[in-house]
C-alpha cells in the first residue's frame, strides 16, 4: 500500500532527481516546490499558478467550475502546477502518494528546462514575472479602491479587454515595424510599380494603420484619446498577461511531451523500489493514454518525441531497460529550443506516428460526429494540416485592424483573415460590442459567412449585419 512519507523523504528523492537532471544535461531555472492542499491547488489553477493575480469575477467562475468538476469527480486535479518563472515555482499536492510526488518532481524539471530554453518563452522575462504580476494586482486593486473609479468601471474595461486579450501578434519573435518604417516600406513597394503613384502614396500616408494591426488592445490604447490613464493601464496589463501566457498555449503538445519524455527517463533511471515503480507505470500510462474523441497533448507529444528518438537511433529503444544514449541529446535539445506545436507537428508527425496515435478527422453529419479521414497514404497530410490549424494559437482567429478612420468618422475596421473557418456569430457580435466599448465609436468587422462577405457593425444604435449573397447586397437589418 501507499507509503507514508515526510518532507525529508521528498528532499532526498528530489536530490536524486536533480542529480539525474544534471547528468542528462537539462538546463533549468532554480526550482521551488510548494506543498499545498487541494483547495490551494484549485486556487493556483484558477490564477494560472501565479502567486499574485489581480481580481476579476471570471476567476471566481473558473474556480467554481473546476471545483464542481473536482467534487463530482468529472475531472481530477492535475498532479502538477508549474509556472514559467525564475525561480520556477511548482505546487505539490500533499495528499498525493510518494510515487506521484517523485513523478511530479521529475515532470516539473522537464517543464522547467523547456521554459528556460524554448525560444517562444524568450520574451516572457521569467526573472521578473512574479513581481510584475504583483504589481498588476496592486495597480488594479488601487483602481478598484479609488472612489472615482470603482469596481464597476474597472470590471467593464477588464471584461472588454479579456474578450480581446489574445487578439494580438501571433509570433512575438517577429519585430514590429514602427509606423514610419511601415509607411516607408509601403511607399517603397509602390514605387516599384510603374505609372503614376502619387495618388497611391497619398493614400498610404493617410491610411492608419499602414499595415494591418493584430494587437487590438494596444492599438486602442494608443489611439483612442478619450481613454483615461487608468483605462490604458488596464489594457496594458491584460495585454502583458496575454503575451506572457501565449507561449504556453503555443507549446502545449511539445512541452508536455518533453516533460513526459524526461520524467519517464528519470524515473526509469532512479532504480525505484518495486512498489513505487509499479505505481509509476500505472500513473504514467494514465497520463499518456490516448483520450478517444479528443487530443491528449501528453500522448501526442510523447509519441512525437519517441518518434524523433527512434529516427535518430534507427530503432525503438526499450525505455525501461536501456538508458538514453548521449549522442542523440544535442538533437533533442535543439528541437526543444526551436520548435513550437505547429512546427513540431509539421516537422515530425509522419504517417507512422499518426497511425500509432490513431488520429482521424471528423465532420458533423446530421448532428453526429462522423470520421471523414483516417491516417492513410492519401489523407494523412490533410489530417496533419488540420491538426496544425487547431493546435496552439490556431484556435484563435486572426483579426486585424485595417482602418481607424472609416471615411472620416474615426470608426474602426477589423478584418477577419478567413481561411475556411467561420466565426461563431453570437460570439463575434458580443465581442464586437466589447470592441465598441473600448473604442467608443462605430466598429466594423468584416468576415465571411457561407463563403460570402459579411460585415458586422456596432455603433450607438446597436448591431447591424450586412451580408452579400450572390453579388446582391441585402439592406442591413437591425438587431435591437
Amino acid at each position, binding site marked *: 500500500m501507499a507509503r507514508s512519507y515526510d518532507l525529508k523523504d521528498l*528532499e532526498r528523492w*528530489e*536530490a536524486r532527481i*536533480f542529480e539525474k537532471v544534471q547528468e542528462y544535461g537539462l538546463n*533549468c531555472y*532554480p*526550482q*521551488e*516546490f*510548494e*506543498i*499545498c*492542499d487541494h*483547495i*490551494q491547488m*484549485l*486556487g493556483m489553477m484558477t490564477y494560472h499558478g501565479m502567486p499574485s493575480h489581480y*481580481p*476579476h469575477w*471570471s476567476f*471566481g*467562475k473558473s*474556480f*467554481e*467550475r473546476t471545483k464542481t468538476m473536482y467534487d463530482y469527480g468529472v475531472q481530477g486535479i492535475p498532479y502538477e502546477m508549474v509556472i514559467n518563472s525564475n525561480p520556477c515555482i511548482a505546487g505539490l499536492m*500533499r495528499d498525493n502518494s510518494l510515487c506521484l510526488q517523485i513523478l511530479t518532481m521529475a515532470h516539473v524539471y522537464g517543464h522547467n528546462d523547456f521554459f528556460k530554453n524554448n525560444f517562444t518563452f524568450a520574451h516572457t522575462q521569467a526573472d521578473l514575472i512574479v513581481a510584475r504580476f504583483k504589481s498588476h494586482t496592486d495597480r488594479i486593486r488601487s483602481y478598484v479602491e479609488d472612489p472615482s473609479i470603482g*469596481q464597476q468601471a474597472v470590471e467593464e474595461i477588464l*471584461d472588454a479587454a*479579456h*474578450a480581446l486579450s*489574445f487578439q494580438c501578434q501571433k509570433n512575438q519573435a517577429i519585430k514590429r515595424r514602427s509606423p514610419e518604417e511601415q509607411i516607408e516600406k509601403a511607399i517603397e513597394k509602390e514605387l516599384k510599380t510603374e505609372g503614376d503613384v502619387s495618388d497611391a502614396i497619398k493614400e498610404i500616408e493617410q491610411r492608419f494603420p499602414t499595415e494591418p494591426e493584430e494587437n487590438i488592445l494596444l492599438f486602442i490604447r494608443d489611439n483612442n484619446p478619450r481613454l483615461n490613464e487608468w483605462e490604458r493601464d488596464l489594457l496594458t496589463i491584460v495585454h502583458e498577461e496575454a503575451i506572457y501566457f501565449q507561449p*504556453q*498555449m503555443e507549446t502545449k503538445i511539445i512541452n508536455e511531451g518533453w516533460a513526459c519524455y524526461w520524467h519517464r527517463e528519470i524515473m526509469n533511471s532512479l532504480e525505484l523500489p518495486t512498489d513505487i515503480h509499479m505505481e509509476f507505470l500505472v500513473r504514467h500510462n494514465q497520463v499518456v493514454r*490516448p483520450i*478517444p*474523441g*479528443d*487530443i491528449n497533448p501528453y500522448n501526442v507529444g510523447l509519441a512525437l518525441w519517441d518518434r524523433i528518438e527512434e529516427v535518430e537511433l534507427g530503432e525503438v529503444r526499450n525505455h525501461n531497460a536501456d538508458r538514453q544514449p548521449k549522442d542523440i541529446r544535442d538533437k533533442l535539445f535543439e528541437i526543444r529550443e526551436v520548435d513550437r506545436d505547429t512546427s513540431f507537428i509539421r516537422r515530425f508527425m509522419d504517417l507512422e506516428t499518426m497511425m500509432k*496515435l*490513431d488520429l*482521424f*478527422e*471528423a465532420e*458533423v453529419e446530421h448532428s*453526429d*460526429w462522423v*470520421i*471523414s*479521414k*483516417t491516417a492513410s497514404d492519401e489523407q494523412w497530410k490533410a489530417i496533419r494540416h*488540420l491538426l496544425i490549424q487547431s493546435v496552439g494559437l490556431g484556435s484563435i*482567429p486572426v483579426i486585424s485592424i485595417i482602418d481607424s478612420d472609416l471615411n472620416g468618422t474615426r470608426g474602426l475596421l477589423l478584418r*477577419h483573415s478567413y481561411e475556411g473557418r*467561420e*466565426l461563431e*456569430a*453570437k*460570439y463575434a457580435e*458580443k*465581442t464586437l460590442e466589447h470592441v465598441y466599448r473600448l473604442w467608443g465609436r462605430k466598429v466594423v468587422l468584416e468576415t465571411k459567412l457561407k463563403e460570402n462577405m459579411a460585415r458586422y457593425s456596432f455603433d450607438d444604435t446597436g448591431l447591424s449585419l450586412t451580408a452579400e449573397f450572390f453579388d446582391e447586397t441585402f439592406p442591413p437589418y437591425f438587431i435591437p
Partner: protein
Amino acid sequence: MGAVFRPYSPTDSMQSDRSSGDRQRHRQKLREVLKGNIADVISEQSIIGRGPDSIVKVPIRGIKEYRFVYGQNQPRVAQGSGESEAGQKVGKAEGQGTPEDGKAGNMPGEDYYETDVTLEELVEIMFEDLALPDLESKPLRAIEAEYTHKRSGTKRVGIRAQLDKKKTAKNRIKRRFLKEKMEDGVEDAATEESVAEKKRFPFNQKDFRYHRHKPDIRYESNAVVLCIMDTSGSMNVMKKYLARCFFFLLYQFVRLKYRQTELVFISHDTVAKEVNEDDFFHKGESGGTMISSGYQKALDIIQDRFDPSLWNVYAFHCSDGDNFQEDIPKTMELAKKLCENCNLFGYGEIKPTGSIAWGTPMLEKYDEFIAPNFTTICITSKADIWPKFKAFLSREREKSPSVDADALGWR
C-alpha cells in the same frame, strides 16, 4: 540538492482561499442574472409549496466570456481507440465540445450553474424586482391589533407606582445645590442641631415627578389568504399547476407584508370543502362546477373565523371559467358579497392555449362586475404567471389612494 521546498502549513491554507472575493463577485453577478429571469425560475415546479427556509436549487445560465472564436462543428482532428474507420460515428455534435484545459471559456458551450437560494431570498429578489414601494400600506386595513401604553414625559402629580425615581432624585439634588449656594454668604452661628438638619435634606413635594403615559395603538397585523380552486373534471394537471403557481406567489407576497398570515384552501366542484394544502394541490376531483358553492364556503369561513374587522382578507379564485349556466346569477351575487368582506378579491381564469372551453367563460361575466377591490386576470401559460401577477398588483396600486387614504395616514 537543487530545489527549495516550502512545507505545507495549515494556516497558509486557511488564508489561501484567495479566490473568495472573486467568487463572491461572480455570485453577485449570477444573482443579477437570476433577477433577470426570475419569471422562469418561479414557474419551476420545484419551488412551490415549500417552507421559507428550504433551499432551492436554481439553475442559472452561466455568464459568458465572449471572445472571437471559430464556430463549432467544424471538422476537427481527434484520437481514436485504435481501429478508427471512415464513416464511424464518434459522438454527438452541438455543444459537446470538450473545453481543453488552460483555455477554458474558449469554446462556446452552455454552462449552467446551480445556485442555492433559500425561498426567503428568492421571494425577496422577486419583490425587489416588483419595485412597488407603496404597496405596503395599500390594502391594509387599520385594525387596532395591539393596544398598549408608552411613556411620554413626566407630570407633577400621579400615583406612587409611576414615580420617576431618577428625575425625582435629580430634582432634589438641584434644590439642595441651589440652597447651598444661597446660604454660602450667610455663614451665621450654626447650632449643632441646624448642621444636622442641613445634612439631612429630605425630598419635598416639589421634587416628585411621575411618568406620563400615552396610549400606543398598533394597527393591523393579521391576514388570511383564501385560495379557492375549481377542481372539477375540466381542471387538468396543467391548469391546476398554473393555479398553484399563482397561489404560491400571492401567499408569498401577503406573507411578506403581514406578521401573521393564515392560509385557507377551498376546493370546489359542485360542492365546496375546506381541504389541507396537500389535498388542495394534488387530489384530483371530478364532476361539474358550481362556483357559487366555493364562494359560499369562503363567506362562511370568513364569518366563522376571520372577522373582516380584525383580519385582512384576501380571496382568490382560480377556475377555468366553466360554470353551470343556472349558477351564474348566484355566483355574481356572492362575488359581490365577498368583495365587501375582503381587502382584495381576485378571479383568475386559467386558459392554457389550445385547450377547449366548454360553456360560458366567467371572465366575460365578470367584466360587467365592477368593484374597487375586484380584479380579474387570465393566465394562459407558465411564462404568463409572473407578468400577470405583477399587473395584478400594480392595478391594485392605481386604485389605492381612494381605498385607503385613511390607512396611509397612520404610516
